């Protein structure tokens, strides 16, 4: 899931780059040296997961896992996602350099939101409630991703209303899929190593 090069208006590209840079700097500040491997490996795992294809009739969906990355990294999702998107642009020409800022905002802002929502909703020791919270957060994160994407299109030109609507509709199945995948993946982590998930009582 990404915006292609050439579509967004120049001021928007600049503004999004500024926002992404701010998020990047803040996220890096919150990354202690001993956190670096965790950020790097989550970034690499995100990179790998986005190539997973889920069959959907004649077409297929790509997973995004922004909610999961957000839950695991919080603000550090900005550097993690920016690096992964940069490498996807350079190695596979998905997205690109000019639109990298916009794509980072699209992916990382809802990821950070996911972190805070998850902390709020996961104050429980019941695995089922944790899974439901994670599922809701995962679905909301994708919804956020898609809404920002659509907003960028509309801000560029009102005439992009139909593509923006198309983007929204096309991703409705992904919202459900991501919800389920995030729920089950977090349930997995909760069962196996709950200390790897953020502690809702700890400092953010």
């Amino acid at each position, binding site marked *: 899931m990404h915006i292609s090069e050439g579509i967004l208006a120049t001021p928007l590209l600049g503004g999004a780059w500024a926002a992404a840079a701010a998020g990047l700097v803040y996220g890096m500040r919150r990354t202690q040296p001993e956190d670096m491997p965790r950020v790097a490996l989550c970034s690499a795992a995100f990179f790998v997961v986005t190539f997973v294809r889920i069959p959907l009739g004649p077409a297929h969906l790509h997973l995004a896992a922004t909610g999961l990355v957000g839950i695991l990294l919080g603000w550090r999702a900005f550097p993690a996602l920016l690096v992964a998107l940069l490498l996807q642009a350079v190695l596979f020409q998905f997205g690109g350099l000019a639109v990298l800022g916009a794509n980072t905002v699209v992916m990382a802002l809802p990821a950070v939101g996911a972190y805070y929502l998850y902390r709020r909703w996961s104050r429980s020791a019941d695995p089922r409630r944790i899974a439901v919270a994670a599922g809701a957060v995962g679905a909301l994160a994708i919804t956020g991703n898609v809404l920002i994407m659509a907003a960028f299109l509309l801000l560029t030109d009102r005439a992009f209303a139909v593509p923006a609507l198309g983007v929204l509709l096309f991703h409705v199945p992904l919202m459900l899929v991501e919800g389920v995948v995030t729920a089950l993946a977090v*349930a*997995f982590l909760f*069962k*196996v190593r709950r200390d790897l998930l953020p502690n809702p009582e700890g400092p953010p």
Partner: protein
Amino acid sequence: MSAPVIEVRGLTFAYGDGPPVLDALDWVVPAGARVGVTGPNASGKSTLLHLIMGLRAAQQGSIILYGRHRVTEGDFYEVRARMGLLFQDSDDQLFCPTVLDDVAFGPLHLGASPDAAQEAAREALAAVGLAGYEERITSRLSAGEKKCVALATNLAMQPDTLLLDEPTSYLDDRSRDRLLSVLKELPATLVIVSHDRAFLDALTRTRYHLEDGRLR
């Protein structure tokens, strides 16, 4: 007489642009046979087993399993329902949170109901001496325990053919003896890749040696 379980003709395989690992290899394993495969490290034993399971595609040659040519991914679905592979590295084989999930994965994907899959998983775990391990976290087991769970994932699918890649590595004497008796009782065609001569001697009569891309 039924067709051989495994028949391989002119099988040639290389990873990427590398040198050929298997070079026009021919091999026949009749139904009900128990054969051992030896060979130096990096000779391609694991690769051969992966090719037979359809997990990688050979550049040349044909793979005939249960009497039918197997080419497409679809051809191999049926094969994998009957033929099990014990991976050399159990960490490659096990990917579920708990032991029970992992052992039940196979039966579930072969169409068993969740209850039946769990039942099959419990039985398989008991057979390898791991009754009571159901709720253990797979990634926290010891290497030897992982090996036994990996074997159970295969047994739960009730294979009529079992390919075993280094089954005795990491096993202590007790687990090794249990494995030996489990395999002796198992009514299945067995292909055992191992460096453990005594283990092969106890189980197999036919022996192949893989070297320079050929079996002899």
